[in-house]
């Protein structure tokens, strides 16, 4: 039970923190405006030189393996609705860690997405 709770916590916290770090890395690169293949390749080369990118990828890997672990103990229809909390965690993290302004309308949208994702998985076979 304790293991399960730890895995679920890791899926949400490590997964969301990982994506936040990756976002931070991309924000240091700055807005991509040139979409020619060579320019995109240069953006990716620059992106993998930002430490936040690697921290983010490592955290996302931890979340991925926690997901595999949780799925080996619990049903997918229980695990995935719990991970829908990531959307709320993401909006909160965006505000605190990235300085985004999450308006009331955006919060309403995020919470609707949480509810919707939960329903999608409850309604699974």
């Amino acid at each position, binding site marked *: 039970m304790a293991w399960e709770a730890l895995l679920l916590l890791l899926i949400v916290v490590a997964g969301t923190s990982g*994506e*936040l770090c*990756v*976002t931070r890395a*991309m*924000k240091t*690169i*700055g*807005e*991509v405006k040139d*979409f020619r293949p060579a320019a*995109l390749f240069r*953006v*990716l080369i620059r*992106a993998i030189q930002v430490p936040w990118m690697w921290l983010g990828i490592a955290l996302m890997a931890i979340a991925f393996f926690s997901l595999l672990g949780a799925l080996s103990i619990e049903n997918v229809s229980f695990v995935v609705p719990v991970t829908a909390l*990531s*959307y709320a965690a*993401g*909006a909160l*993290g*965006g*505000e605190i860690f*990235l*300085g*985004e*302004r*999450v*308006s009331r*309308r*955006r919060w*309403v*949208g*995020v*919470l*609707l*997405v*949480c*509810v*919707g*994702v*939960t*329903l*999608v*998985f*409850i*309604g*699974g*076979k």
Partner: protein
Amino acid sequence: MKSFSDFHLKTYILIFFVVIFAPTGNVLLSKGMKTVSPISLHSLSDFLQLCVRVFTSPYIWFGIGFLLMFFVSYLLVLSWADYSFVQPASATSFGVVALLGHFALKEPVSAIRWLGVIVICLGVLAVGNTHPRTTEHK
């Protein structure tokens, strides 16, 4: 106002790529893994045989290709748009999966699942009504 609309346009185009590439990649991977199963892992040679079967499956390679394209699109859109905008907007992929399952794979999709898809779409509409970037002004 040209740059304003360009900004929105490229955001929506890349989010469109994200919600198409991610589920397509996952469906291909899942199909690939089902064609190489059943898996029994009793020895190292079982494991090596499995690796050979996994990495000679075209489904797996196409799946990886789509997931790579998904990740690059995701990175690109995050270079300018808010994470708290992109993450919920990407949830549209649940709707894409339900539609793919229903129309392409002829899978039964339950009423509760359709309700969930509708609620997600409402949420995405609400998020989509906010400006994609709230951190800086140009």
